[in-house]
């Protein structure tokens, strides 16, 4: 059996692209040459002020840049690097490690389907296939199969623009895509925020 080295494990997209060894690595961007939107700059500076070491702001700063640009584009990374006074390579190494940073342009609505063990026992793989079929023609939807999202009580579940919904039936896949396309709140009655705890012994004083 032929073994493709590293093809499995690298979390770094582009690991197999040849590096241009003649090119100097980019240094810290020159603030005089990089235009940074004022809002983004103040958001990053506020984050840096929270920590004893400004590098700690890398995740919140990249998240802010991604919110603004839609993904961690080279331009977005350069802007963050400029404000934080670090190299773009440092931020790229961070951005490639975490699942929630997008390294390619994506649709503006994120739909994460949990396909980990508890959800898959209750039909998450079928749900993902149904969503894939329903969202195939919609460029605005960034559909991803995700690892455990921490909501196994509403399995199978999805996180739509970072809000949790579940449990979903297969028919809900179509409705979810249609709701998003129409700009409505998606499948509102399945929102996690509305759920009471399952424990019959909780709320000893009849909290409701």
């Amino acid at each position, binding site marked *: 059996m032929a073994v493709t080295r590293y093809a*499995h*494990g*690298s*979390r770094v997209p582009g690991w197999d692209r040849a590096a241009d060894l003649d090119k100097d690595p980019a240094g810290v961007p020159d603030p005089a040459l990089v235009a940074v939107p004022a809002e983004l700059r103040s958001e990053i500076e506020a984050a840096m002020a*929270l*920590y*004893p*070491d400004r*590098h*700690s*702001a*890398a*995740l*919140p700063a*990249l*998240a802010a840049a991604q919110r603004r640009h839609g993904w961690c584009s080279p331009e977005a990374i350069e802007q963050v690097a400029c404000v934080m006074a670090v190299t773009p390579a440092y931020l790229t*190494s*961070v951005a490639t*490690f*975490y*699942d*929630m*940073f997008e390294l390619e342009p994506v649709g503006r609505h994120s739909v*994460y389907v949990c396909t*980990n*063990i*508890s959800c*898959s*026992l*209750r039909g998450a793989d079928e749900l993902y296939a149904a969503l894939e079929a329903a969202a195939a023609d919609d460029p605005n939807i960034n559909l991803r199969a*995700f*690892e*455990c*999202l*921490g*909501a*196994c*009580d*509403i*399995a199978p579940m999805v*996180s739509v623009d*970072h*809000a*949790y919904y579940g449990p979903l039936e297969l028919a809900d896949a179509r409705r979810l895509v249609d709701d998003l396309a129409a700009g409505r709140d998606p499948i509102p009655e399945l929102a*996690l*925020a509305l759920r*009471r*705890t*399952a*424990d*019959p*012994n*909780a*709320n*000893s*004083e009849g*909290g*409701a």
Partner: protein
Amino acid sequence: MSQAPILLRDIDEPGLATLEVYQRRGGYEALRKALAMEPEAIVAQIDASGLRGRGGAGFPAGRKSSFLPKGDMDKYLVCNADESEPGTFKDRELMQKCPHMLIEGILIAARGAGITRTFIYIRGEYEAQARILDAALAEAAAAGYIGEGILGSDFSCSIVLHRGAGAYICGEETGLLDSLEGKRGNPRLKPPFPAIQGLYQGPTLINNVETLMTMPHIIAVGGEEYAKLGVANSAGTKVVSVSGHVKRPGNYEIELGTPSREIIFDLAGGPPDGRRVKLWFPGGSSSPVLTEADLDVPYDFDSLAKAGTMLGSGAIIVVDDSTPVLDVALKLAKFYRHESCGKCTPCREGTNWTVRMLERIDAGEATPMDLDIMASVQEHIIGNCLCVLGDAMAMPIGSMIVKFREEFEAHMLSRQIAGAVA
């Protein structure tokens, strides 16, 4: 379960996430009490309570706190809210519905260990929960619970909410520290342990959300009173997340030592009608699996350890007899392969080869030796990496090979026959 719930006591009270309702329910009284106590007395109470860490390792919380050096150096407390262990969703519900209890717990723990700077590392996917916590932090700060000279005392403390960005490994305490420092979340070599050299090289106390949320209650009733709950070496109550093939998945607060059967059947409703429990994970997907024969094991740290597994994060995943064990093993192995940070070879390669061998079995291309090779791969991962992510795959997969060997072999054979016929 006769024990009145502690963490879930008022959990669905409307508006519990607001300061007003939390205070009406007795919130922040324990903090007032703690501020009047000497820091050593707070740690002594937590020590006396027998509280063990609720995040996975089960380390005694009081002792962990006492490991921090005394003195005026910069010390940090980090609340681990990166709840990513498959099957675990207790911290999500607790933080979402009762954020002030976490804030109060952090303040008490920080006061006990002489810490003035604290961080909550919450996983990036919990956006709604992060927003709720943010609002609660602002409210608590405005009411004088956070900041300089809290409630007129000499104790000052800050809390910063830090959001992750999606990586299971950041729940590992040293991976979490690197991530909080703005790096890739690669675990560090231990020792030095975080209590000596952690965040920004300073002594750092790291506790799980549920551990910290238990502290206000311990201070309120006293450590010895809390220690009366549960069984020897496993004091108190635990919020257990039950999921998978059960009728009523959800969070249940139980007294430690409750028979597992009671949790799975009486509380969570058991498997669907006509189905039987085939295997179950007692403490998240990283714990070695148990079978139907183990359902009467008391649910506490020592009893589960004696049964060859662990309580872990307190997440029970039930799998019924409709699901082939190979599917479960493959799902699990793929998860750990994806989440391996790649720093240590046994984990990076071991998780990868385990997936390949399982896929080979499924494709009918496996040889009878493969199960033994796979078992030996698991043995070579365990204990040979900087952190336990690799072990977290190796332990359950190893236990599945031992307990379900016949099924694996039958699966192999049936796929081979199917291949030959085709």
